Each structure stands twice: as structure tokens, then as C-alpha cells.
């Protein structure tokens, strides 16, 4: 075990997979010479050379399509979006090509590609650069969507994503790159896709949180423990396929749920989780499922407004107290 940042964990995963499998290559804006906009690909050009770590022009649709083609002929591309906001330009290749190819080719072409990069809010980068797009991608059959919240999850899940034979949308969080955590040193350490993780056990209320909201939910759970409320924090880690069974198991134990998410509330992953809980565990609910979501507005630039737009510890605490009928 070593304690490293999420940034370093991702870097380790990329390095290990580049070393392990010569069909793996990296591609994206500034990933090579500049070591990546957020330094996730630091040192990889030097170590693996220009054929494996490739700087692209600012052409998201173009290099995403190039990646899909490479995957069709047997390579395993890892395409970095500087942020997922720029993936919006590449959605035709992601949704119409990567997600559909296996189906439309009658199973002849699987697309083992990873699209990765930071999503969600950063620090005062305003409306166009602060978007949480996971519900977009999770909507489409044919894509897998992964959102790690710890260094170990980041490493284990990225390695599994690269080894996976289907297209994976791997969404990191810029605010979390510096978060540290213990990571196993074993070069074959992986975490399977589609398996949720109970980050904290509790008995009174289940908080379902992903990505940036996991550390926030854990802090809220600590505060609530002092108020004699025992919270269970479940991190789905993979949004599609969603490990709903683990969530339902927790709900059956606690009977009350708060779904915390950084994204907008409308048609969000939280809305999907709340619906599935209602469908599968209606008779176990003692209170309506409560969502804590990002504000339903374009992300404001002003620092004070930005803070108000992103769920914080106090909002999660208040939501938990509400479903536990304490206020």
C-alpha cells in the first residue's frame, strides 16, 4: 500500500496498462509533450515514446473517430478529453459509432476504447466548463460509465476500463485530482466494473453518492453520527451498469435514502436511482427518496454563487435529517 493522489493513481494505471499491453495507446490534447493539462499523463511520453502517447490537434470529433477506428482494428485507445465539456463536440463518434458498433455490426466489431478526463465542476471556470455529463452517456446502451471517488478506485477502475472490450466513459473530477488515498501496489490490482462500494456502513439513512459527492457525504455522515444518526454511504462507482442490488440492500436496511449528486437534478442519474429504488423497494421506504443535486442553473462564475450551486455537507445533513423525520 502506498498513499498517493488520485492524479498519481490514474498515472500508475495508465503506465501499468501501457507496459502490460502494447495495443494500448494514449491520445488527446496536450497528453504528450505537456504531460497532460492536469498532469495525469506525466512522464508517459518519455517512457513509451511518440507512437504510444500522441498529442492531437484541437479536434475532439476527429480524434475520437480515429480512436473508434483504431479500436475496430484491434488497438485499445485511451482518449483523453481535456475536460468532458469538450466531449460534447465528439458525441457523434461516441454515441453513434462507439456505442452502436457492436450492435450494428452484428457482433463483428467490439470497441475497446476508454474516453477519459475530468467532469463536473472545477474552480470558477463558469457555465461551459463545469458540467456533469454522466447522465448523457449513461443514457445510451452500448456505453459503460465509470466515476471513481478515491485513489484506489481510480486506479483499479481505470485498469479494468482499459481491459474492458466495450467503450467506457471514465469521468474524473478536477477538484479531486489532489485527493490522497491508499492504493495497493500490486500491478494486477483491478476493481471490476458494475460493482458498488459501501464507503461507510450505517443503519438509519442511506446516502448514495458518486464522485465529488462521496467525500462530502462521508463528512456529512461524520457530523450526523454526532447527532446520533447512523448513515450508510454507498458509492455506485459505475453508473452503467448500475449496481442497484447493493443500493437496494442498503435501503432495505435503513428505509430512508438521500441521493447526492453534483449534476443538475432534471433527468439526472439521481433521478434514475430514485426511480429504481421506488420500483424495487417501495415497501421498504419510510420516507420519500430525497435528492440533493446541483442547482438547476448554468454554473455561475462568481465564487459565492458557484459554492451555492454545488451541494455541500450542510445540504446533505439537512436532507438526511429530513428523511429521518428529525426536523
Amino acid at each position, binding site marked *: 500500500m502506498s498513499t498517493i493522489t488520485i492524479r498519481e493513481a490514474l498515472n500508475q494505471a495508465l503506465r501499468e496498462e501501457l507496459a502490460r499491453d502494447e495495443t494500448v495507446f494514449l491520445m488527446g490534447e496536450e497528453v504528450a509533450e505537456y504531460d497532460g493539462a492536469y498532469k495525469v499523463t506525466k512522464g508517459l511520453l518519455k517512457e513509451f515514446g511518440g507512437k504510444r502517447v500522441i498529442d492531437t490537434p484541437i479536434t475532439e470529433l476527429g480524434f475520437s473517430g480515429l480512436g473508434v477506428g483504431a479500436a475496430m482494428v484491434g488497438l485499445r485507445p485511451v482518449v483523453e478529453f481535456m475536460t468532458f465539456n469538450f466531449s460534447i463536440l465528439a458525441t457523434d463518434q461516441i454515441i453513434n459509432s462507439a456505442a452502436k458498433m457492436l450492435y450494428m455490426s452484428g457482433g463483428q466489431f467490439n470497441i475497446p476504447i476508454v474516453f477519459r478526463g475530468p467532469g463536473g465542476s472545477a474552480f470558477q471556470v463558469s457555465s461551459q466548463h463545469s458540467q456533469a455529463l454522466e447522465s448523457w452517456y449513461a443514457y445510451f446502451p452500448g456505453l459503460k460509465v465509470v466515476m471513481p471517488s478515491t485513489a484506489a478506485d481510480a486506479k483499479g477502475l481505470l485498469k479494468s476500463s482499459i481491459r474492458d472490450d466495450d467503450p467506457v466513459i471514465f469521468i474524473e473530477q478536477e477538484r479531486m485530482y489532489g485527493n490522497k488515498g491508499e492504493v495497493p501496489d500490486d500491478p494486477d490490482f483491478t476493481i471490476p466494473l458494475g460493482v458498488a462500494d459501501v464507503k461507510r456502513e450505517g443503519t438509519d439513512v442511506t446516502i448514495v453518492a458518486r464522485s465529488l459527492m462521496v467525500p462530502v457525504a462521508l463528512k456529512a455522515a461524520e457530523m450526523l453520527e454526532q447527532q446520533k444518526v447512523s448513515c450508510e454511504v454507498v458509492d455506485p462507482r459505475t453508473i452503467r451498469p448500475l449496481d442497484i442490488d447493493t443500493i437496494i440492500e442498503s435501503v432495505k436496511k435503513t428505509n430512508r435514502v438521500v441521493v447526492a449528486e453534483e449534476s443538475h437534478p432534471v433527468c439526472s442519474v439521481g433521478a434514475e436511482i430514485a426511480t429504481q429504488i421506488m420500483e424495487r423497494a417501495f415497501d*421498504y*421506504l*419510510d420516507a420519500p427518496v430525497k435528492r440533493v443535486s446541483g442547482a438547476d442553473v448554468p454554473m455561475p462564475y462568481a465564487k459565492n454563487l458557484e459554492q451555492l450551486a454545488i451541494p455541500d455537507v450542510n445540504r446533505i445533513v439537512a436532507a438526511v435529517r429530513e428523511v429521518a423525520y428529525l426536523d
Partner: protein
Amino acid sequence: MATKVIMPKLSPTMEEGQISRWLKKEGDKVSMGEPLAEIDTDKATMEMQALANGVLRKILINEGQSAPLGQTIAVIGEPNEDIAALVSEAPAAPAKEEPKKLEEPAAPPPPPQAKAAAASAQPASGVDGRQPQAATADSGRLIVSPLAARMAAEAGIDLRSLQGSGPGGRIIKKDIEAAISQPKAAPAPAAFPRAVEPRQFPQAAASGYRDEPATEIRKVIAKRLVTSLGPVPHFFLTTEIEMDRAAEMRKGINALDPDLKISINDIIIKVVAAALIQHPEVNASFQEKFIRYYEHADVGVAVAIQDGLITPVVRSADQKSLSEIAAEVRELAERARSRKLKPEEYTGASFSISNLGMFGIDEFTAVINPPEGAILAVGAMSPKPVVRDNEIVIRQIMRVTMSCDHRVIDGATGARFLQTFKKILENPLYLVV
């Protein structure tokens, strides 16, 4: 924490209740499960038990006054607790028993509690800062979390007896857990002092039965007959019964032990029960999709009470002795007249008897009490000249008329039953063979 005592639902059809008697006065200590008041419902006088511990602080509905279901009728709290908020939430009690002119219409019911509760935004009090309120307060609709609903169903708890502690009075898990952990209320002491030593009546609950699918022809008969004569298509069968032997038997038995006090009606019940067992097709009821055949003869006996009638049920009359039937009918009738019958004691008969003989009625037809299949109307027994062996002789004659539900009983079926009934009653020795 002060709690409201609300008018509970004490019978399936009750909409309001009248306080017959407060068993505690203001200032008395009460504990959970203790009888608090006697309440007249539409069917009977029932005891209401306290659902909280403390002191009966305030009586809001006086004896003789009525309140709709769910209305606050009293407040239980700690001796020095401020209960002003709870009292002011409740609708003002009407002034004490003003003498009313006969033709004056009854006072309108007090305004529903919901309005008062909504208007007074009282500061929250209580352990978790939430004012408990009746779950039905706002709209009459029960608000309950899915989990609480399931837990209540599994534990057999009547949700309407609970007060929800969630928002808007929602009944939540905590309320069900509290209700489950409550010690079962001690059985209420017998409200009716018995002159004789208490008897154990077997099988207070309804007897078992088996359901058989209604055949197609039976369904068609049912459908067609209903279109011609009301929801229950009645037909009537009358016969004349020579009662001399039955009267003799009664005299003989009562001579053995005057305490037995067997009546002719008791003998009729016994004979009806015996005939029902011999004719199970009559001991049945029509249930739309199937016909229910009862295993025992649960015989309802119509009892006239002030402003109405009620039909207490002698369960498994086929298995009881005449003396048991006599004692049970006497006891049930007495409690029926003082309106102390429990709902399970006057529902679920398989066959009923209505006897107007004591009013000198020779013959009449009775209306079936659904879903029973039939009812026997019994007229007066009186000496009549009849022809026997070509001679005119005097006999004690009684006429009975059976009303049958044609959906389940056909003319010949009913006639055969009545034949057996007549045979046994005219020769009551059949009862012992």
C-alpha cells in the same frame, strides 16, 4: 408530552360516536390500555381505552355529546404541562346539554379538526419537535409511509388507531414500532355483570367453511333472478307444524330443572341447526364467484331492541345442547338489548330465525340478511282444529315461512329442508337419534 384523545373507529360502519360515560374525570391518572370512556356507536356501546400514560387533563366532549371520527375528545398529559395549544386546536365543545325542542334539528357537527389545526400554527413541542396529529386529520385520507403500511399489515395493527408523527401526520416506521412495543391492553373487564356464573361459550369466532366455484348455470340463474327481484331474489315457502310434541318436550325438560328455562324458540334453533347439517346446500351463501358452504350451523336470532333489531349469532348451534343454546340466547339477547354486543357477535351467521310469535303474528315473511342464504319467519303457536285420521282434533299449530335466496337455494332444495325441519320439530325425539 401531551397527547390528544381522538374519537376512535369502533365499528366498521361508525362515522361518529356519542360519549355514553366518561370512566375517568379530569385530573384522574390514566395509563395506557385503561378504559377511559364508554362510547355509543351506531351498533353498540363500546369501551374506549387510553392510548397514553398521564393525567386526563381536559375533557372536550361531555357525556351525551357526539363527535365525528378523529375529533379530539380529550387531552392526556403531565399534571402541570401547558396543554393550551392542544385544547385550542380542538373544536369548541358545544355548550352543556341545552334542552332541545323536539322538532329542532340536531346541532350541526363541529367543524372538522383539520381547519382548526391548520389555522393555528403552534410552535412545535415534544421530544422530536413534532406535534403528533391524527394521520387522518387533513383530508380524511390516511397518510402512511409504504414501509409503515407494510409493517402494520404484518403486525395486524389498525392504522386508523395510530397517530402519525411524520410531516402532515404521516404514519412512519417509528409509530408502528411504538405500537408494536406497546403492551397489549388488558382485556376490558366484563361491562355486563352476569347474574349466573360466567359460562364459557365455545367458538366465539365464526365456523369454518369451504368455497365451491359457482357453476355456470348457477351464475345464470343468479343473474337472471336478480334482474327480476332486487339484489337478493327472495322466494317464500310456508308450512304448518304441529307443535304438540315439541311443547310437551319443553314442559318435560323444564320440569326436570326449572333453571333451564328452555323456550320453544330454543328448540326451533336446535332443530334448524340439525336440519341445516342434514341439508348443507341450505347452509350456504351466494358470493358472486362462488358459493360458500358452512361447516357448522351459525344461527342468527333476531332480537328486537329499542329503535331497531339486531341478530346475535349462536355459533355452531348444531354442536350445542338445548340448555347451552337457551343460556347463550338469553345472555346474547340481554346484551343485545343493552347494546353491549361486540361486532363479531352479531355478524357472520349462516342462517337466521325471526320469531314474531310473541306478538301474536300467525304468519309473515322475513327479509334475508345478506349474505345469508335464508331466514325462517316463525309465527305464533296456537290451538287449531285440524283433520287427523278423518277426525277433527285440536292441535298446537305453528306456521313458519322460509325466505330463500334463489341464487343459492332452489324451491325443491328449500322444500326438502323445510320437510326435515318439520319432521324433527313434530317429532323432537329425532334430535336424540
